[in-house]
């Protein structure tokens, strides 16, 4: 971030790293860590799914809320990370190295896809990312030798750490929670530090940031790769939790749900998308089951209700219309 121009920082976020934030984060983590001791196994599994999906939503929030890049294809990186981790767990190692493979592969895919996507603006970015997600799903569907085709990769071995196989609901939960915290801290570090301020500046006025000497296209690509890498981490956790990866995990509907979670939770906030993810998972899994398989119906109505009833939560997203 070497800029020759000294300027007033654009709207530094009020998310301080003061004592209160640290205390609240630590307390929240402790409560989450203790949860499986008091919950039934099914509830623990649901909570695990919420953490996985929450990390995906939080990584998408870096793009939507901080950089102002509304992506409808973020699940592509999630799915790629999940496939890479599941493949590694099946064929190579079941350690945490699977997650590293997921992160690296997802970041590489994000680099390639992003190199095209960040050149576009506004609604073109929305549509292009949608196409990227859909094509990733099609690729997963057709590349049977590696992805298992439409059956997906099933029977993924449980993760193991320090020689212990983590195949109980509670141990899987703690494994997921540990890396969830790592991913969330990485996201927070980026969004509250100097790069985060630059990214917000790009969201608010890309032309001005460019005039100040920032290479905005490269910076946006960097943000996309970072968000893609965290989504890949979430994908690796999905493979560990679900022990199954299907093309739908990379597809349009997963992306749309992640975007919905971000919008429900409030795009500016760091932990809001996780709350949104919790609501989405509960509606899809619990309500969908009681509605006799009409989960999509409930979700569709949730979309419509959120847009009509929660305009404040989404008021400050700016889908830039290029003004050149």
């Amino acid at each position: 971030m070497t800029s020759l121009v000294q300027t007033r920082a654009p709207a530094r976020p009020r998310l301080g790293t003061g004592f209160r934030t640290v205390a609240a984060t630590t307390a929240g983590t402790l409560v989450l860590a203790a949860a499986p001791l008091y919950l039934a196994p099914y509830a623990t599994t649901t909570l695990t799914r919420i953490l996985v999906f929450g990390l995906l939503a939080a990584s998408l929030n870096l793009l939507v809320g901080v950089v102002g890049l509304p992506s409808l294809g973020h699940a592509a990186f999630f799915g790629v990370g999940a496939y890479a981790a599941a493949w590694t767990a099946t064929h190579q190692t079941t350690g945490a190295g699977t997650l590293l493979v997921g992160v690296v592969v997802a970041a590489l895919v994000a680099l390639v896809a992003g190199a095209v996507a960040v050149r576009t603006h506004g609604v073109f970015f929305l549509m292009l990312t949608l196409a990227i997600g859909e094509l990733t799903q099609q690729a997963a569907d057709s590349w049977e030798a590696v992805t298992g085709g439409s059956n997906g990769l099933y029977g993924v071995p449980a993760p193991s750490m320090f020689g212990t196989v983590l195949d109980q609901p509670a141990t899987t939960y703690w494994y997921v929670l540990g890396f969830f915290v790592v991913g969330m801290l990485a996201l927070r570090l980026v969004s509250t530090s100097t790069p985060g301020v630059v990214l917000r500046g790009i969201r608010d006025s890309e032309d001005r940031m460019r005039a100040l000497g920032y290479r905005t296209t490269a910076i946006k690509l960097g943000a996309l790769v970072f968000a893609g890498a965290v989504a890949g981490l979430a994908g690796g956790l999905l493979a560990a939790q679900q022990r199954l990866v299907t093309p739908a995990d990379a597809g349009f509907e997963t992306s749309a749900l992640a975007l919905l979670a971000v919008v429900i939770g409030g795009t500016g906030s760091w932990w809001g998308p996780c709350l949104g993810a919790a609501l989405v998972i509960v509606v899809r899994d619990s309500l969908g089951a009681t509605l006799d398989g009409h989960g999509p119906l409930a979700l569709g109505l949730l979309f419509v209700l959120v847009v009509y009833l929660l305009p404040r939560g989404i008021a400050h997203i700016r889908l830039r219309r290029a003004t050149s």
Partner: protein
Amino acid sequence: MPTTQIAVTAMVNGLAIGLLLFITAAGLSLIFGMMDVLNLAHGALFLTGAYLAWWIGGEQQTWPSLARAVVAVVVLGAAAGGLLSLLTAPLSRRSHLEQALLTLGIALVAADVLSALFGDDVRATEPPAGLDGTVTIAGWSYPSYRLALVGVAALLAAAVYWTVERTSLGALFRATVSDRDMVATVGVDPRLVRGGVFVLGSVLATLAGLLGAPIYHARPGLDTTILVLALVVVVVGGLGSIRGPLIAALLFGQVESVGRAVLPGLASFLLFGTLAAVLVVRPRGLFTLAPGGRR
């Protein structure tokens, strides 16, 4: 000459698919270009048209059932367009992202209703007698439905093109693209224009679904496939124009059909490769209208 036969058949198929894509994408482009609404429920409209073709005609269409299906599809498309226009009207001053989420929600509801009504099986329908075989021209045989489709779709495409580019109604539409407030100032109710564009765009989508039913076969998930194809066409062709999507749709029809014949496993990647190549050279599509630098 089997190779030539395959090549020619693939190109005729590509022409048919391209024209079908154009009819679908033209509706999307009109609605976005004129009303500034990104309608992600467009694929659901196409699928509705395809299901109606099966529901009215059964597995084997007859000419009377085809005529009934056309009427049903136009009426339903118009009603759906009016409804979409009403539902999105309150969001006209808000961001594209919110409109996208709303229409996405509508698309999810529509997909669920369609699968509740028609089940999860593939609902194939065959074209009526006389169009269900092959014809032989100059020693080469083609599926006759695809040839007829080329003719009908070309007529429809020409009608859309002529309406938008040459009539006073089209002039009103294009004026709305350039400056909505000015159209309101000269005394035309923008809500009527809005409703009209939505109705026209939606009818085009349901009609394309009816015409495409014997090729694509109505099934769950077809709505997303078509939506993505139409979006790719519109992104490459440029939003709000008619000529851009026409050229892009014909290009992608060939990429899809010839690609599937030559490199069966890589057709989707060819599609994405073409999309990426176009956007690297022209990030705003080939023919985006840029009146007064609005976009």
